[in-house]
Each structure stands twice: as C-alpha cells, then as structure tokens.
C-alpha cells in the first residue's frame, strides 16, 4: 500500500451545479468531474487573487506528484473561517476537487478533510 495513495480518481458528477469564479473563467476546471486526492501539504499559499494548496500525492507506483488546488481569495476564506495556518506543511489531508481540463495536476477545491476524514472546509 502506498504511503498516501490516490483514493478515488475521477467520478462522473453531471448533477453538480456549475460554479462561476470571478477573477478568471471557471472553464479551466471540469465541473462535471471530481477527483479525490489524499496527500501531504507542502505549502498553503495564502495569497491573492487565489489561495492554493500545494499538496504532494504519492501514486501507486511511488511517483510523487505535486498538485495545485485552487481556492478563493484570502478575504473570502477568512470569512468562511479559514486562516493561513488552517493547513500546515506536512499535514495529511484529503481534497475533493474539480480537476483541470488540461489534465495537469490541479483543480479547484470542493472540500477538504483531515487525515481522519473530519471536515476542514467545504464548498457545499
């Protein structure tokens, strides 16, 4: 078993409502699909115009891939109870996200749970 492993790759989720972001078009994300990633936080970028979770995911063959998980702007995250130290480097987290259409390792966050599956934050 891999150290962290990808839990479930991609699931069809055509029922999800489309989302709209303001700073840039949301078209870069495939909102009909979700990825569920388990990995280690390398860095939580508390930055404008978007925050990012940089997380390292170890795939089944042992390859480590760094994913960029986009979030909203810090002021909105703050309003939803998030803080710069909500995610600390080295923490194991699970992120559900709409992946980039390009296939690159990135997406926009739907929700985040800790290693035990406890909710840290959600879009829902």
């Amino acid at each position, binding site marked *: 078993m891999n150290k962290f492993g990808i839990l479930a790759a991609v699931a069809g989720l055509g029922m999800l409502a489309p989302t709209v972001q*303001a700073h840039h078009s949301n078209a870069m994300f495939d909102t009909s699909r979700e990825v569920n990633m388990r990995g280690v936080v390398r860095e939580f970028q508390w930055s404008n115009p978007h925050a990012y979770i940089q997380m390292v995911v170890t795939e089944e063959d042992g390859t480590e891939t760094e994913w960029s998980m986009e979030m909203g702007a810090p*002021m*909105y995250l703050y309003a939803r109870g998030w803080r710069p130290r909500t995610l600390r480097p080295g923490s194991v987290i699970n992120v559900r996200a709409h992946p980039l259409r390009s296939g690159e390792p990135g997406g926009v966050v739907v929700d985040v749970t800790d290693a035990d599956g406890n909710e840290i934050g959600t879009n829902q």
Partner: protein
Amino acid sequence: MRWTAIAALALAAIVAPASAQDSMDQAARTEKFAELPYWPGYWVSEYTIGTTIGGAAPALAEARERGDTSFFRNFMSLNGGGASWNEEGRARLAEVRAAARGRKADGWGFPMMMNAATPIVFAITPELVIITNSYGETRHIYTDGRPMPDELDMWPTVYGTSVGHWEGDTLVIETRMVSTPSDYFHGAPPYSEDAVYVERLRLEGDRLIGDYTVTDPTYLSEPFHTQVSWLRDEGFDRMIQIDWDNDRTSFDGEFNTIEAEAVED
C-alpha cells in the same frame, strides 16, 4: 532657558488664535459629519454573496440553473459587456478579450474594483470619501466642494481622479483620467482615457446601490448605464489587505490553467 521661554510664549501667541479657530471649525465639521450617511461594514457585490472556499459564487450558479439571465447581467456588469461600443470600440473590445486568455492582472483597478470579488469599505468624512478593498486598492473622492482639477493637472491613473458631492443621501462621484482599465485587469472594459464615469451611490434598506454612467466619445456610441449592488456578507470583521502577488493564471493553448508550481527539493 530664557530664550526657550521666549520661544514658547511666541509659539503660544501664534497657536492660540488658530486653536480657537480650529475649535470652531471642528464644531462645524462635527455637525457636517452628523448629517452624512454612514455605510459601515464590508460590502460585497451582490452576486458574490456566500462565496465559497473554492471561490465560487453560488448565487450565480443558482441563477444559471433557473435560467435567470437578468442576474447574470449584474455579474461584473461594469466590464462593459452591455455597453454600446462603436465600430472602433467593438474591435478594441474583441482584441482585448482575445488577449485575455491566461493573462495575469495587476489587481482590479477602477471601475472593476467596484464590481469585483472583494469586499469594499467606505470611510465617509465631510471632505473626503475613501473606498478601499482587500487588495489595497484605494479611491479618494473629494467632497469638499472643489471642482475637478484642471486637465493639465491630471494624468491617467489606474483609479483616476474623483470629485464628489452629496445630493441628499446619494453620493455622486465624477471620475476622469482613468488609464485604460483593461490594461490593468484583463476583464475590464477597454475605455479610452477620455472616458467620464459618473456614479450615484445610495443605501436602500440593507442594500447599497450604485447607478453608473460611462461616457466615452472615443469608443462608445452612446453613454453606458448599468447598476451595481452590494450587500454585507457574513464573516468579515476587518479589512485585511493582501497584495495581488500570486496570479498563477496561465493558458495551455485551449483553456486557462494554473501555472505550474515548482516542487522544492
């Protein structure tokens, strides 16, 4: 010591009359202050209410699901999408939008900061209204009765030059000499530097309403009118200004994407 005492007396003689005048001015100013509207709180464009941690605006998604196109017209309506562009303006708009893919921005700028995904605050004094957002973008609107500066005393800037006055509880702002907005933020309108922006801001219940008129003889065939509304969202307790320092928007040839983040060894 003697010279020190003399100097102190001389200073007191100079300051005393001014202090009395200052007190009178302060009393008059306090009265003016009391007459002004008070718009406390952190105002967000209405369509961004409830913005999630993923940066999505649920009101827009809900409007899309119910097919409410009127709501979408309010989405960043200051971007000029609904304006009557003349032939040159249409060409310019198309060029700017085509070049927007993957383009990084420097911030929202004016007018988009009034319609953007950021809370804004209003500091209202008798002489000056300051509007600022969480990106450190600030507008200074002089309401002390001064006219618009002479054209030779202005030059194009991202936020332009603004003077304002109160018509009852409505703040009327005129802004000129705004550098081409789309140069600063790719989603902004490509108005010319000759454009004149007039805003009429007022409180209606819990909603702040702004009526906008943009006149641009260079690129618009007629003045552009639109309305922006703001509400107080939950969760904000102070304005925290953070630089626009991590715009990782990129373009992969087909879609915008997130610029790669190098893995540190």
